[in-house]
């Protein structure tokens, strides 16, 4: 009988495919992973504590920096939470514009997901094509807000500026080209048998486990649980749009990939509808310059971010600064299933699993 010893290998914190400062301590037996321990906190920037020393309006740019891949989505969650707290009603047009930019940033985030999966599996070219297409979204963000990535576009009670005229043709041509882009990803990345072999039946997350761990977003839907906050606990004007919630069956890496690809298509549909129905009018509600919500009020508001359920828990103490801000970060909770789905797999599957769980460390560590 041959006895083998296990050994520990540290993936990260400085490692090309850990999406930032993630540290996975893998306990290995040869190429097989016996166990994995996730260490987070390498990008802990104390955002929640900083929020307590900023006024409600001043925290908006920080919220953008939580999930930097889709910077509009956490901003949307935060501003809607504050609006709920202070009872601000947002003008119609602003709501529509918010939906358009959030869905665009969802597409951008999923594009990075596809690209980073490709590069983590060794197909550099797939990443470059995804970034090439993402540039068009970045252009649109630059047009509307002035920044490419961290837009800080939304404000309490509205948005900072109306969309410029050049935005509409850009977004329309982008939506029209989106199916072609997705076809190309299918051709180059997901159609590839090597990639299919590496993703199918890798990192299976069962529906029970997913629910038990509190996994949300595309990762949950890939496990076959049909749950999307945009439809099941709607916020903003999402009930007005018609879209399908894609789900997978097996909960493996392949399903997580395909669910996101389909979500890009559905986001395209939502943007189309929003562009069609967008009314004209005000973009900014009247918000007092120094916003002081009632003392002792607290709200929890959640939005469907590109990573899952992104919640903001705000507590007011009657001053112009929040007493406590807590962020329920989907990446953090999704990452916790990593040991579960890595056990028994190969070392290379750990990389696939990290890539398909799509964590954003900025959001996870906060």
């Amino acid at each position: 009988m041959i006895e083998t010893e296990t050994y520990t290998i540290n993936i990260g914190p400085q490692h090309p495919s850990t999406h930032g400062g993630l540290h996975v301590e893998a306990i290995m037996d040869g190429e097989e992973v016996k166990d994995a321990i996730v260490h987070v906190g390498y990008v802990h920037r104390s955002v929640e504590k900083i929020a307590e020393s900023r006024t409600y309006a001043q925290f908006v740019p920080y919220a953008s920096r939580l999930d930097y891949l889709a910077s509009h989505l956490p901003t949307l969650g935060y501003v809607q939470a504050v609006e709920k707290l202070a009872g601000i009603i947002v003008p119609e047009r602003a709501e529509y514009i918010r939906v358009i930019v959030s869905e665009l940033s969802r597409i951008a985030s999923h594009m990075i997901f596809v690209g980073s999966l490709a590069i983590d599996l060794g197909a550099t070219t797939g990443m470059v094509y995804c970034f090439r297409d993402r540039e068009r979204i970045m252009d649109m963000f630059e047009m509307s807000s002035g920044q490419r990535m961290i837009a800080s576009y939304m404000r309490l009670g509205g948005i900072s500026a109306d969309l410029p005229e050049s935005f509409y043709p850009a977004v329309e041509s982008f939506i029209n080209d989106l199916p072609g882009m997705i076809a190309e990803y299918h051709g180059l990345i997901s159609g590839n048998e090597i990639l299919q072999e590496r993703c199918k039946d890798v990192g299976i997350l069962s529906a029970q486990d997913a629910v038990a761990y509190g996994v949300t977003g595309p990762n949950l839907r890939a496990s076959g649980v049909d749950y999307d906050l945009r439809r099941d606990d709607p916020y903003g004007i999402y009930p007005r749009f018609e879209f399908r919630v894609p789900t997978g069956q097996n909960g493996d890496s392949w399903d997580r990939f395909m669910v996101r690809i389909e979500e890009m298509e559905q986001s395209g549909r939502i943007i189309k509808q929003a562009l069609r129905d967008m009314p004209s009018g005000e973009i900014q509600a009247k918000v007092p310059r120094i916003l002081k919500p009632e003392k002792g009020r607290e709200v929890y508001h959640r939005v469907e971010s590109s990573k899952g359920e992104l919640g903001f828990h705000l507590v007011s103490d009657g001053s112009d600064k929040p007493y406590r801000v807590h962020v329920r970060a989907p990446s953090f909770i999704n990452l916790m299933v990593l040991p579960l789905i890595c056990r028994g797999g190969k070392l290379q599957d750990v990389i696939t699993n990290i890539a398909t769980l799509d964590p954003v460390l900025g959001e996870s560590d906060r």
Partner: protein
Amino acid sequence: MEHLFTNIAQILTSWMVSLGLPPIWADLILLIGQWTIIVVIVTLNVIVLVWLERKISGFIQERLGPNRLGPFGAFQTIADAMKLLTKEDIIPSQADRWIFMTAPMLFIVIAVMLYAVLPLGQGMEVVDLNVGLFYFISLGSLSTICLLMAGWGSNNKWSLLGAMRSVAQMISYEIPLAFSLLGVVMLAGSLNLSEIVTAQNRYWFILLQPVAFLTYFIAATAELNRGPFDMPEAEQELTAGAYTEYTGMRWALFFLAEYTNLVAVSALAATLFFGGGQGPWLPSWLWIIIKTYLIMLVFMWMKWTFPRIRMDHLMSFSWKVLIPVSLANILITGLGIEFFRGMGW
């Protein structure tokens, strides 16, 4: 033009003999000269190849690639090489010093030795060995040991993992590589590379042995640690695999050897399957260069398109697909030869 280099060699030999040197000494001096020329050409060729690879990856990715230094960025690799020469040479304190230091040198020596038997044109091989193919394959499999030395000597888990992977991979792919070449050997009836080239006077062996070429191509990619089979380096998984602890020139030697191997393997493919130096109008040495470069372009194209295969799939692909297929190819080739011989062709 056709016999340019062979003529030069002949003239040199006869000149040296006329000076009073014994012919054996003249041959030896010529041999050393040929080696030096090969080493210089290989090194310069790698500079071109690295540039080519960067340009090709650029074009595939809809960008330009290096274009600042020299025409079309052609001198970019020279700057890189000079920089690598002047980098600090770190040997980790916990490393196995001698193994760590000899691994890259051995790797490049083996890579250059492969060129000894390659006919780089008609009558243009350094040694006209009658077991040339055998020499090539057995020498090629030695490079595994260098990678293992590098991985073991570095005393780094990533390195060791990369080295182990490379050993497993090379051992598995050595077999289909050798088997796939057997078909060609059976057709040509010789292990001598120049005789195999002559045997392709009527048909290139790619037409008679397409399956063998395919298996050879896949196995060679794995042998080269390239493209979808770059397990030992596997940047996204093992940071830099077996080379993790190597700096500066030592690392560059590995890099150099990898590209040298690429050229050798492509030249062998051109020799065995594409008629070597045979072709109309142009001299034979030019033809083999053209063919080698075209095969290398396919290698690069593949590398920049495919994702990396998983280790266990890699192994099972070799043992479950490639080896049976190449064995069946040998069987069919043998039957075919017997059949055609029976027909009296």
